[in-house]
């Protein structure tokens, strides 16, 4: 049996040679198929994994981007945000839950320019991309310049379903541009003022010569007439008056454009304030404003140039008056003196006007900076350099309630202590 079995065994392949090769072929094919299939399966899984990874990376990238990225729904005319990356949240100051579902355009801030908003809506409504810059406001009201790019996202049929936007804070860039622009303007202004000073100086000289002659001739004529011709005498007097008036204008122009060397003397600041206010009182009355004083009578004398310090006071007072110009209900101007410490006195000019916008604070004392259309932008910068030449400081701050206070310090006269 065993033998036959062996034979059988031996024989069998011989007998079914064809069958066997067919089988082998099938197995091989199946194996190959399996291999392909499992390969395909592996590939599919890999691909899925890859796709997942890519989505993950893309999401991560959007989350990590330093520019604000957001997606808004296009069909809903409220333009709700369905995605906003952390940079967008940081940019606008709104938390994620305040952003998602919110009308995108409301996040520009209440003070945003509605004309720009309309322009953006109009552009993207037509399926076009918007690219522009605008002033936005953070949640806390702080404003910033925003560079905006909003692009429609379309479905397979080509209709717009969403918008994707990139928003970047370009305040720094804008600031630099502005500074460059300002410097350019300042330079122009310097040239203009320099030319003006030169011009005024030569003009003043040229005009005061004939004014001198006219005055001398007229006075000579008056003397020659003596008591005769009263009508002519009167006319001559008018000529003299007008001559002196013209001379006064020239003098003032010179003072305005000429630097004089300071003459230092002991000064009672309170007295100086009173003198100065007397000079400007007609202006204060004409504008229907009230001036109040809180002068500390115990402040010591200071050492300084009377004219220059008067110029500073006049400047601060007239600035305050101008700040209160537009609002009739802000009427009160307060001048206060106090002893800051044993060596320093402090003079404040406080108004109840419109205050100083934050962005103007830094530039307030720079040459040729002015918020007034007809201002020369010299007043505060000259005032500061005068105060600094006296060893003091001139500063500005907004009042907690309304208006602004400009104040300067001056060192107490040393002789006072001797």
């Amino acid at each position, binding site marked *: 049996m065993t033998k036959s079995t062996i034979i059988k065994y031996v024989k069998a392949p011989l007998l079914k040679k064809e069958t066997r090769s067919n089988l082998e072929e099938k197995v091989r094919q199946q194996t190959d198929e399996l291999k392909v299939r499992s390969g395909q399966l592996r590939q599919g899984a890999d691909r899925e994994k890859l796709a997942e990874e890519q989505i993950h990376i893309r999401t991560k990238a959007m989350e990590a981007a330093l520019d604000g990225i957001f997606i808004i729904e296009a069909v809903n005319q409220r333009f709700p945000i369905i995605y906003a990356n952390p940079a967008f949240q940081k940019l606008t100051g709104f938390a994620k839950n305040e952003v998602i579902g919110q009308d995108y355009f409301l996040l520009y801030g209440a003070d945003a320019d509605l004309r720009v908003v309309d322009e953006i809506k109009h552009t993207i409504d037509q399926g076009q991309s918007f690219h522009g810059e605008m002033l936005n406001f953070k949640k806390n009201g702080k404003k910033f310049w925003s560079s905006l790019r909003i692009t429609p996202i379309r479905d397979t049929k080509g209709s717009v379903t969403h918008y994707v936007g990139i928003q970047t804070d370009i305040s720094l860039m804008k600031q630099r541009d502005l500074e460059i622009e300002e410097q350019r303007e300042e330079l122009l202004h310097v040239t203009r003022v320099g030319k003006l000073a030169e011009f005024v100086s030569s003009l003043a*000289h040229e005009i005061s010569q004939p004014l*001198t002659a006219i*005055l*001398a001739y007229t*006075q*000579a004529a008056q*003397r020659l007439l003596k008591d005769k011709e009263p009508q002519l005498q009167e006319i001559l007097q008018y000529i003299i008056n007008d*001559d*002196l008036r013209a001379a006064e204008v020239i003098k003032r122009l010179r003072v305005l454009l000429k630097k004089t*060397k300071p003459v230092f003397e002991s000064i009672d600041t309170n007295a100086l304030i009173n003198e100065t206010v007397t000079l400007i009182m007609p202006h204060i009355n004409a504008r229907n404003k009230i001036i109040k004083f809180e002068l500390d009578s115990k402040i010591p004398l200071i050492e300084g140039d009377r004219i220059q310090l008067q110029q500073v006071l006049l400047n601060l007072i007239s600035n305050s008056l101008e700040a209160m110009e537009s609002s009739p209900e802000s009427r009160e101007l307060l001048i206060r003196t106090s002893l800051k410490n044993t060596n320093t006195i402090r003079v404040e000019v406080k108004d109840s006007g419109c205050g100083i916008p934050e962005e103007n604070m830094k530039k307030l004392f720079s040459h040729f900076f002015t918020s007034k259309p007809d201002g020369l932008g010299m007043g505060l910068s000259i005032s500061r350099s005068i105060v600094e030449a006296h060893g003091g400081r001139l500063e500005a701050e907004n009042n907690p309630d309304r208006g602004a206070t400009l104040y300067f310090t001056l060192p107490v006269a040393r002789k006072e202590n001797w």
Partner: protein
Amino acid sequence: MHNQFNLVHLSLHCRGRKNNEMSDGRMKIFVVDDDESVCRALKTLLMTFDFEVITYNSAISFFEAVPNDEPGCLVLDIHMPELDGWAAQKKIFESGSKRPVIFISAEKQETVGDRALKVGAVGFLQKPVNGQTLVDLIHLAAQTTHTNKMIQG
């Protein structure tokens, strides 16, 4: 009074008669200003106060024409080409002349008046100059010259 507009001729003419004029008892005034109209007008005015007035359009022509020891008050403009008022005053002072000088200038700076006194002038007046003020200063100058007390520094 008709000749007041011919001052240039007059001044040339006057130079040769200085002794006579001194005997007239009229005080002599030299006006030096580069502006001819100012010279002429000041001369006209000062003549109504009965001064003898001679004008020059530059400090150089004044020095050429008038010896340092010739008596007379100088009304001197500060801003002039070539030799300006300060330089002219320095020249007078250094020569030892006692000539009283009154500065006039269109420019007014606190320091100009001080400087004028420091360099030995009788005073400083800003243009346009009031006639009476100038005359008062001239009279003061006459006294100052007598006592020879000038303010210096």
